[in-house]
C-alpha cells in the first residue's frame, strides 16, 4: 500500500481528512477487505491512545475464538412479488422477533492477527452465541453474549418507533450495518 494512502487512512481515522478525499478513501475501504483491515487496525491504535477501549482487552479473545464457517450460497430467485400463500410466518411478537433477529445475528467478524476476518455463526435460534467482543465493529461493548443479545433486541425494537424524518430509514441502516465487523 502506498505511503500516501496510509497517511490518508490515518488522517481519516483522526477525522482530519477533507470530505472530498474522505469519500474516495471510504469507497475504497468499503470495497477492499485488505484496506478495511488496515483501517480497523488504525482505529484500534487510535482508541488505545485515547483510552477508549473497554476495560477487558478483547484481543486475546479474538485469538482464542476463530472458527471458519462454510457459508451457504444464497439462492437467487427471479424477482417477483412475495406471494402471501408462500409465507410461513412464525408467530412472534415485536420483541420476540427482535430477539430472534439478534440470536441469529450472533457474534461476528473478529479480525485475526493477520487481518483476515473470522466468522462465527449461530446455527439455531436458541443456541447461545459464541462469546466475542471486538473493539471495532458495530456492537454493544459488553462482555456477556446474553446481555448483548438482549440489548440488540431492544435496539431493534426501539428503532422501530423512531418515526422522525431526521432518522427515517437510518435506524435500519444501523441494524443492517450492525454486523459489519465480519
Amino acid at each position, binding site marked *: 500500500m502506498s505511503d500516501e494512502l496510509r497517511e490518508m487512512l490515518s488522517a481519516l*481515522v483522526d*477525522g482530519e481528512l477533507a*470530505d*472530498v478525499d*474522505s*469519500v474516495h478513501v*471510504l*469507497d475504497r*475501504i*468499503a470495497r477492499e477487505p485488505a484496506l478495511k483491515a488496515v*483501517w480497523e487496525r488504525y*482505529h484500534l491504535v487510535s482508541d488505545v491512545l485515547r483510552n477508549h477501549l473497554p476495560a477487558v482487552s478483547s484481543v486475546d479473545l479474538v485469538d482464542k475464538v476463530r472458527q471458519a464457517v462454510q*457459508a451457504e450460497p*444464497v*439462492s437467487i430467485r427471479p*424477482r*417477483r412479488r412475495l406471494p402471501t400463500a*408462500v*409465507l*410461513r*410466518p*412464525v*408467530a*412472534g*411478537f*415485536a*420483541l*420476540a*422477533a427482535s*430477539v*430472534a*433477529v439478534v440470536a*441469529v445475528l450472533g457474534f461476528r467478524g473478529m479480525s485475526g492477527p493477520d487481518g483476515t476476518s473470522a466468522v462465527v*455463526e449461530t446455527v439455531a435460534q436458541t443456541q447461545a452465541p459464541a462469546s466475542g467482543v471486538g473493539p*471495532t465493529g*458495530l456492537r*454493544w*461493548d*459488553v462482555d*456477556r453474549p446474553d*446481555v448483548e443479545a438482549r*440489548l440488540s433486541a*431492544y*435496539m431493534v425494537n*426501539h428503532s*422501530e*418507533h*423512531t*418515526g*422522525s*424524518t431526521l432518522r*427515517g*430509514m437510518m435506524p435500519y*441502516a*444501523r*441494524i*443492517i*450495518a450492525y*454486523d*459489519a465487523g465480519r
Partner: protein
Amino acid sequence: MPAGNGGGLRLAVDVQRLLCALFLVLALGVVQADDGSDDAFQWLKRMGEAARTLNYQGTFVYRQGSLLDTLRIIHRVDAEGERERMVSLNGVAREVVRDAKGVTCILPDHHSVVVDRSRRNGLLPSAFRTANAGLDAHYRFTLGGRERVAGRTARIVNIQPKDAYRYGYRLWLDEDTALLLKSELLGSDGAALEQILYTSIDIGADIPDDLLEPSTLGEGYTWHTSGQDQSVSDAGESEWDTSWLPAGFSLRHRERNPLPNQPVPVQHMWFSDGLASFSLYVERLEADKDPFRGHSRVGAMNAFGTVVDDYQITVVGEVPQGTVDRIGRAVRRR
C-alpha cells in the same frame, strides 16, 4: 432645553427620529430572528417533505467509529404510497424494505426474514411537520454555509441541544430539493459519533418496480412476523414510571410485548422530545439469571441497566450516557 415654539418642534422631530430609529432596530431584530432559527426550521420541514414525496435513489456510506458500510437506498412514491428499500452493498445483501403494510428485514446470511406490520413509523408524526413543535425550547436551529456533497450544492443546518441530555446534529441538505445528503450526529464534545454521507444520488427520475423488489424471495428462510394485534398497547396505568425526565421529554407510547417462553410480558415505554428518543424496558428477572447492571453503548446509542424489586430495568436510546443513567436510576415502581 426647548424654549418656545421653535424648540418644541425640534424636540418633537428628535423624538420622532428616535422613535423611528427604535422601530427600525426592533424591526431588524425580528428579521434577524427569521433568518436564524425559523429559516433553518423551514429547511428541515422541506427536508421531511422531500424525503416523503420525491423519487430518489442513491448510494451512501454509513460511518460509526471504524465501522463502515456502503448502502443503497431507493425511494418511490406511487398510487399505493411510499415504498423504500435499503440494501447493504458489502458482503451479503442484507436489506430492509418498507411499504404501506410495514417493514421487512431480509437477512440472507441467516436465512431469516423479520416482518413488522405494526406500522409504528406512522405513530409519531414528523417532528417538523408542524411549525416548530416546541423544539426550539430545547434545541438551537441555525443555518450554516454551503458545501458540495455527492456532486450537489448543500446547505448546512445545525441543530444544537440546549442542554447536555441530548445529542446535536449537523445536516447537509440539497439546495435544490432539500433532500438529506449528509448528516452527522454530534456527541457532547461536538465530535461526530455517526455519519451518513451520500456518494451519489439520482433525484426525480422514474423508478422501475424491480429496483424495489428484494433480491431474494426468502424461500426456505425462517420468517418472524409481528403486528399490531400481537403487542398489546397498554392504555392502562403501568406500575412502572420514571421520576425524572429531561426537559421536553414525555411518554409517547407504551406497550406490553409477551415473550414466547416467558409468562410475564416485557413492558416498554417510549419517550421523546420530538427529535431525540429513548425506551424504557421493564421485565421480570428470570431465576438464576445474572442481571445487566451498568452501562453499555454502541455508537450513538447508550444503554443503562439496573435492578428494582426483581425486575430488570433497561434504558436504551440515542441520547448521551448521562441521560440514560439518570433516567435508569430514577425508575420507580408505584
